[in-house]
Structure formats: structure tokens, C-alpha cells
């Protein structure tokens, strides 16, 4: 175990040991348990009740819009924090302040668009 790639060998060995433990447990289980399947035993377990309907169900993904809108604020914050630490320093000043508000206005345009399109109301 020398050099840069040698250190990765430790990781690989660790993975191998982990895989051996999990695989060994399953193998031991299989070797020891009895195996007598019936159709009832092979159905999906649903709290002991007979399963109803299909495995595929359609669900209404309602949160993705809020995930998008969150990105608007996240991008805001990413630029606001570093700006806040320097804007009062020497040589910056009102122009810097104004530039940030221009940037915020651009971001706010996205929010205004979402609001106008009725995205913000909870259905």
C-alpha cells in the first residue's frame, strides 16, 4: 500500500469485507431456512389484507413548482451574502447598492411571472 492510489486499496478492501458480511448472511439464511411456497405466500404483503389495485399509481406532483421557486431565493442568497460583506467597504457605494437592486429586480420578475400565472395558489 504505497503512494496515492495505495490509499484507495484500503477503501476497496473495506467494501469487499462489507459485501462478504452481507452476502454471507443472506447465503446462511438461504441454506438454513425451509422453502415451501404457496400462491398466498407469494402475494405482496399489505398489512395482511389482500392487495388491491396495481403497483403503478399516478400521483400529482404538486411540490415541484415550489422547488423551482425556492431556486429563485437560493440564487438570491448566493449573491446577496458575499455582496453584503463588502458593499459598505471603501470604493463601493451607491452604485454597488443600485446594481444589487437591479439584480433583485430581475429575480423578482420571475416571481411576479409565477404569481401572475397563478402558480402560487395552493390547489
Amino acid at each position: 500500500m504505497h503512494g496515492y492510489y495505495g490509499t484507495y486499496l484500503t477503501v476497496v478492501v473495506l467494501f469487499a469485507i462489507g459485501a462478504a458480511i452481507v452476502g454471507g448472511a443472506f447465503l446462511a439464511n438461504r441454506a438454513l431456512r425451509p422453502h415451501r411456497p404457496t400462491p398466498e405466500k407469494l402475494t405482496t404483503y399489505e398489512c395482511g389484507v389482500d392487495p388491491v389495485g396495481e403497483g403503478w399509481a399516478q400521483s400529482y406532483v404538486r411540490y415541484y413548482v415550489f422547488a423551482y421557486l425556492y431556486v429563485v431565493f437560493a440564487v438570491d442568497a448566493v449573491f446577496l451574502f458575499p455582496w453584503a460583506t463588502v458593499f459598505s467597504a471603501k470604493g463601493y457605494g451607491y452604485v454597488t447598492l443600485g446594481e444589487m437592486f437591479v439584480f433583485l429586480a430581475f429575480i423578482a420578475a420571475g416571481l411576479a411571472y409565477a404569481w401572475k400565472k397563478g402558480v402560487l395558489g395552493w390547489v
Partner: protein
Amino acid sequence: MIQSIGYLAILPALIVAVASVAVLMADAFGAPAKAIGGLTVVSLVGAAVALPFGHGRSTFCAAATRAGEHVSCSYVADDFTVLFQAVVLLAAIVVVLLSHGEMRRSALPVGEYHFLLLAAILGALLLAAGRDLITLVVALETLSLPVFALVALRRYDGTASEAALKLFLVSVVSSAVTLFGISLVYGVTGAMHLDRVAAGLTHVHGDLRPVAAAGIALTVAGFGFKIAAVPFHFWAPDVYQGSPLPVAAFLSVVSKAGGFAGLTLVLTAGFWPYGNTWGPLMGVLSAATMTLGNLLALRQTDAVRLLAWSSVAQSGYILAPMAGGAHVRPHQWMTATAAYVAMYAIMNIGAFAVVTVAARRGIRDLESYRGLARANPGSGLALAFFLLCLAGLPPGIMGLLAKVVVFRAAVGGAATWLAVIMAVNTVIGLYYYLTWAARLFAAGEARRVRAGRAGGVAIAVALAGAVVVSAAPELVLHAAALAVP
């Protein structure tokens, strides 16, 4: 350190950016569709008018950090930039005019459509002006991302969704490849500004030479996607066919002009010390692109698909001068490439304008073009002229000259084999352009098409451009020669 911004330099891009947001807001707050289309055209004209004011300026400059370095700027509005931005803006105006009729017919959301279009145009403008790898990649993405949405905008159309998905997947893969290439180049040179990359590449440590070469080849891949060069071409026909036709016109002209501007900049300003590596690569790409594009164009029966494959083939011609690599001074081949892109933009946008207008009457199949020039002398003759330009025959002097310029550059670049392949390809091209043009005049009953006011203006603008450049080609040739340092 405070960076001052040269607002005059970025004025054209700024106008387009502000207009894109304004258009989106105006639509959300209930402005009529006509006003939105008008605002878009006005902003594009305004940006074109603002071009001379920014000329010769540069901004977003970084001071030298090491000995022997100069100030490097990320945004430079030199002659090259202004020429390409002018081409992009003029083609974009025609595209917006063409979109006018498409809005109602395909029930496209007006505000979103114009917003996305302006955002993509902004990307193309920046691509011609960016002088560092990060700016260029961001511009490339700004050009690509809105286009996926534009293609998919006809939401209940299966072909449109399929086209958008294809475009998206190819684009994402090529972006990833490009970013990997750029990371290799950065690793070797430690610089992002193109002039510093070039300085770094002139003395690369022996072990790192293959890494630099691989980085350059991978970086070029992303631009290859934008211009539909061969390994990244197969999205073109499906996307052109599935998207609204003005968007197809945008892809084949504006987006392609932007891609070529970026590719030219990266190769000359950044990667010229490795001309021996990328020169032959460009030669092979060029030969494969033009041959495949032309052979497949031969078999098309649909007008839009034919234009798609022919525009793949045209990309091959534009790439040909680059095969010179280190043998030719960049000046010569860049002039040829810039001139060809400008001329190609005019003639191809014209052909697309007529095809878009005709498609409104259900004329999409090549057979249904039979007799178009008899039923509609105006648009029929215009289409015939554009096709002759594309084929490179008189009276389409423009196309002929563009071909001659490219041939001269290829032969001068010691890539004689490429010139031979190009000659064969030009003959193949003649066949399908001419059979199409001949159909226009053949006996047959093509339906009457109504161009409408906006469509008529769009065709007239393109035709005026084509006639002026055919009569006085030195306008473009001089501009291209001037534009190249």
C-alpha cells in the same frame, strides 16, 4: 477589486436581455400579442443600431496576475464580434417576423415564445463577443437551453416532444464533454482567458502534451453539436421537422452562426499553438459532415428535412477552411469562414422564410412545390433565387463566391484532398437544389400561398440582402477580411 463595466460595449446584449424580461412581463400582465411581437422586433433593431457604439470597446477585463501577462478582457466588441452580431441580429429579425403567423396557427404562448427567442439570441450575441472559456460556455448554454423549450412549445404534438428530447439529450452530452475538455485545458494552462490559454499552450510540459490535445478535441465537441457537425448531427432533421418552422430557421441560421463564431474564436484566439492537432481533425469533420449531409439530402422528399440535411452539408463547407490549421495564417481561413457564414445566413434564412410561408398552406412535400412559381411569382422566384445561391450557381453570385472563397482557403491550406471532396459534394448539392428549383417552374397546380404582411417583409428583407450581396459581394468579403485581426 472593483470591475467597472463598459456599458456601451455590452449595450446590444443588454438591450436584448432587458427586452426578453420586458416581453415576458408584458405578456403576463395582459399586453396584446401584436404589441409583444412589435416590442421584440423593435428591441432587435435597437440592438443592431447600438452595435457601432460599442465597436472597439471591451469590458470585464482582468489585470495581469503573472509576469509577462497583459490585461485580458472577457467581452470584446471588435470587428469580428460586430460582424457576427450583425448577422445574428438580422437573421433574428427575419425569424421574429416569420413567427408572426405561426403564433396563431400553432396556438403558441406568445410571451413565452418571444422571451425564449430573445434569450437564445442573447446567447448567440455573447458567443461572438466572449473571449474566455467560461463566458463562451455560459453563452453556449444560454443559446441552447431556451431552444429546448422553443422546440417543445407545441405541447400536445408528439413529434415536437420527441424532437425536444433528442435535442436535449445530445446537447447535454456534448456540454458535458466540452466542460471536461475545458477542465483539461485549464489544468494544463492554468488560464481561462483565450489569449492566456494560447500563451500557456505555447510551452506545455512534455508529459502534458497529450492532455492538452485531448482537452482541445473535447472542447471542440460542444461547438460541433451547435453547428451540427457529423458525430453530433443526427438531431438536426428530426428537430427541424418537429419544431415550429421559425424555430427551425432560428436553429439553422442564428444558432449556427453563434456556434461558428464561438468555434472560430476558440480555435484561433485560444488553441492556435495546437493547429497541427486540430487542423486535420477539422478536415476530417468537414469531409464527413458535407458528404453525409449531401448524400442524405438527396433522398429527402420533405422540404424541411431537405433543408435540414443541406444545412448539415453547408456546415461541412464552413468547416473546410479550418482544416488549414497551422499551415495557413489564421487570417486567411477566418476570413473565408466568416464570409461564408454571413452569406449562408442570408440565403438559408431566405429559403426558410419561403418554406415557412408555404407550409401554412400545407405545402411541405417537395412534390407539392410543383408549379409554385407560376401560382405565386413573388415567393416562388424568391425561393428559386435562394436555392440557386445555396447551390452556388449564377445568378446566385453570392453562393458561388462563398464557395470560391472556401475552396481557395482549403487549397491554400495544403488540404487538397479536402478540396476534391468538396468539389464532388458541390456537384451532389447541385442535383437536389436544382431539382427543387426546377419543380417550382414545372407544370402543376400548387396552391396559392399568402405570405401576409410580416411574412412578406421577412422574405423581402432576405431577398434584398441576397440581391445586394450578389451584386456587390465585396461588401461582405471586405467586412470579413477587416473583421479578422
